[in-house]
């Protein structure tokens, strides 16, 4: 029998040898003998921070699923172009009847699902009906709320009959949550092996680690730029940048400005695009002192939005008004106090007759990088006007629970935007909107404006309506809109042809190529 002494000496010696070998390997500048580093032949690895939660486009809600991953797999009737204007997708064109109640889509021919099945109007009818069916619990059901019936007069035509004209419908149909699935697919088959009409089809998945797609050779736009596309999960953005510097990952969306800066300094290309989502101090106009318009206006006037942007987000962004949709953009200066005005704030506060104003404010810690800094800066600014922000810094789950319940005076929030202003704010600021409890503000005038906006298809008229909405919201200081940040996309020098989008979508992976 080997004596314990020999065993321990053997163990120490072999442990030391392994460690030494690894130190040498770790210090050698050469690339490791990995099997999956960047290759020629159009293989691209995208770094994402959380695992794909849902491959079912009707159920997906996680930002990364909806915008990063699923647009490469699925197709929609309409699509957004680079500037977020609605353009044809699986439907090559459409006509709207003069009363706005009938929309006829003319479908593309020769489109195939990854499974090889032909795409036809029957798939569109089946998909839209299932999305509308409450038992499906589809996220996109709200986009089809005004669709009364769906019919297919022939294999390449689909007719939607609406209960009232709906100008938001086309933007809603461009959302990945209203993707067209094959009528033969079920929820279980999609979860196991997604089947879409998009540029890349499912190849393999390791839960918690990666999702690999391969080129859809029969993609209707022609063969996509990449032979294979892998989404690899690396939880920390900084670690993703390190992996890019080592050449293991070629493209990654980044939202932390500090990380984006290190990526830029580290020899990577970093593109920035203004976000649709907006940073805001939500005020609940049905709570306590905030029911008084003068108090809300005092808050609006006391806040120096530029200072919040500079201190919390290192100046990486721009001041915003309510609507961030590029075609309907609000003028950020169009509000009672275009820039911070402490004297005016004090005047409003005096007019309210209140002296000791304390606002209970919820703040999420960890959901996005700037939240706590924004809250602290706002607190110090409002203190100068004699208003106390009492901050409750909460973990994200608690924050979301409180936000949904509407149990706060104010909330420091980063809310998602939308290319369509009705989709963006209709649910918040109409009295029947499902997030109205959270928004804490609605008036009959706003209800009327949103109803008009939804049924107006004339673009110029629509712009005018949403300009009025925007003015109503800022004149009444419903919330204090702060700034929009940037989305960053880091790429290695080998990546070409990728176009980042304001909604954060990676849909242009279909045009992306990789050179060695």
């Amino acid at each position, binding site marked *: 029998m080997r004596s314990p002494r020999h065993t321990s000496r053997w163990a120490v010696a072999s442990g030391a040898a*392994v460690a030494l070998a690894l130190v040498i390997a770790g210090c050698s500048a050469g690339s490791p003998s990995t099997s999956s580093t960047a290759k020629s032949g159009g293989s691209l690895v995208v770094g994402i921070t959380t695992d794909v*939660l849902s491959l079912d486009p009707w159920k997906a*809600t996680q930002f990364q699923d909806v915008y990063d991953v699923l647009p490469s797999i699925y197709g929609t009737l309409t699509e957004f172009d680079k500037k977020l204007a609605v353009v044809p997708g699986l439907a090559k064109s459409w006509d709207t009847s003069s009363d706005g109640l009938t929309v006829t889509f003319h479908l593309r021919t020769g489109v195939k699902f990854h499974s090889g099945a032909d795409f036809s109007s029957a798939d569109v009818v089946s998909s839209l009906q299932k999305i509308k069916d*409450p038992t499906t619990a589809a996220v996109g059901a709200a986009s089809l709320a005004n669709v009364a019936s769906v019919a297919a007069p022939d294999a390449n035509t689909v007719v939607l009959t609406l209960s009232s004209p709906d100008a938001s419908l086309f933007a809603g149909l461009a959302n990945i949550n209203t993707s067209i699935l094959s009528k033969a697919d079920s929820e279980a088959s999609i979860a196991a092996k997604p089947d879409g009409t998009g540029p890349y089809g499912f190849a393999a998945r390791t839960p918690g680690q990666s999702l690999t797609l391969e080129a859809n050779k029969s993609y209707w736009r022609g063969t996509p730029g990449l032979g294979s596309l892998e989404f690899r999960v690396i*939880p920390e953005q900084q670690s993703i*940048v390190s992996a890019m510097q080592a050449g293991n990952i070629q493209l990654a969306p980044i939202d932390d400005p500090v990380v984006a800066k290190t990526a830029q300094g580290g020899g990577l290309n970093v593109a920035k695009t203004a976000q649709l989502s907006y940073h805001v101090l939500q005020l609940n106009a049905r709570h306590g002192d905030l029911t008084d318009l003068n108090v809300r206006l005092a808050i609006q006037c006391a806040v120096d939005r530029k200072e919040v942007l500079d201190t919390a987000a290192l100046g990486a962004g721009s001041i915003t008004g309510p609507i961030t949709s590029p075609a309907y953009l609000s003028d950020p200066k169009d509000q009672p106090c275009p820039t911070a005005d402490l004297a005016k704030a004090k005047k409003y506060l005096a007019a309210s007759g209140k002296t000791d104003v304390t606002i209970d404010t919820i703040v999420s810690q960890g959901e996005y990088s700037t939240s706590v800094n924004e809250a602290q800066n706002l607190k110090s600014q409002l203190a100068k006007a004699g208003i106390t922000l009492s901050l409750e810094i909460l973990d994200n789950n608690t924050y979301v629970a409180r936000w949904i319940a509407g149990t706060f005076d104010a909330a420091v929030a980063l809310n998602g935007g939308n290319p369509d202003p009705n989709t963006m704010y209709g649910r918040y600021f109409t009295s029947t909107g499902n997030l109205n409890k959270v928004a804490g503000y609605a008036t009959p005038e706003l209800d009327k404006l949103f109803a008009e906006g939804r049924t107006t298809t004339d673009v110029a008229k629509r712009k005018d309506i949403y300009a009025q909405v925007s003015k109503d919201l800022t004149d009444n200081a419903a919330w204090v809109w702060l700034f929009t940040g940037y989305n960053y996309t880091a790429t290695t020098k080998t990546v070409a042809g990728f176009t980042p989008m304001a909604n954060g979508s990676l849909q242009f992976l279909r045009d992306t190529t990789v050179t060695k």
Partner: protein
Amino acid sequence: MNTILRSGIVRRLAEAVVTLFGVAVVVFIMLRAIPGNQITANLGTEAAALTEAQRQQLEAYYGLDKPLFVQFFSWIGSIFTGNLGYSAQGHESVVSLTARSLPITVELAIFAVILGLLIGIPLGMLSASRPNSGRDAAAQAVGLAGLSIPAFLLAAAILAAVAQVFHYNPNGAGFATLLQDPWLNLQQLFMPALVLGFGLAAPIMRTARTALLEVRSQDFVRTAVGKGVPQRRVQFVHVLRNALVPIVTMTGLQFGYLLGGAVVVEQVFSIPGIGRQVLNGINQKEYAVVQSSVLVIALLFVIVNLLTDLLYRVIDPRVRAA
């Protein structure tokens, strides 16, 4: 003696079962004390848009509609049938998730312990060789750094520096298990193990120093020196061997902590171990995943402690005789 040993083991096992039950209760309650549930975790703020009927449907789907004690005992009951629950996110049973993640964390912990011992014991010996000297202070300073530099900082700094300077980051290459690609696997685990091992080296070094100094002052060491045994043999065979018991105890305890404490390092280095499984479970509010994974970690902790006890008997004949 056999009876005593057997009753000792029975007592330890009984203690282990009570401990594990306690862990199960605490984890179960703590998870539910945190606001939000799997529905809000999945839907985020969109959960506000659910109708009452949809909410009830989802609650029934996730089993949240049952009273808490029913949830608890149905979980405990299914554990005894080998069913640790199901991850709705991973479309996979917790057993198979854990079967994949646990060996990775165990490998990481073993690797970290080896590195910790390789750093800690020589430092302890260096330090003890001349107490209160310059080299003692230097070794203690390294130990202090190991204790005070947080793992997340060291991990991020090492990763960023090595990637930027050497363009080397095996952890970005997609994780490979020891069986799939041993060479890549060892490279991927080296940096995280070094970070964990460095933190571990500090208590090992301190324990080693104290134990070595104590053993060295004992008569048999003086006798050995007096007999003319070579200095190196005295240090390694007589002193170190006898100082090993507290070092092994300390290492055994730390090994248990490593299993749970590897969360941060696994996150930074993208190691799909059980720590990350727990963290993902917490983020996604997957109660079954968190509860069962924590229970598995606790079970392992208990087993490691038992093994540590047994290891004394191998190292120290005096314990065997006692």
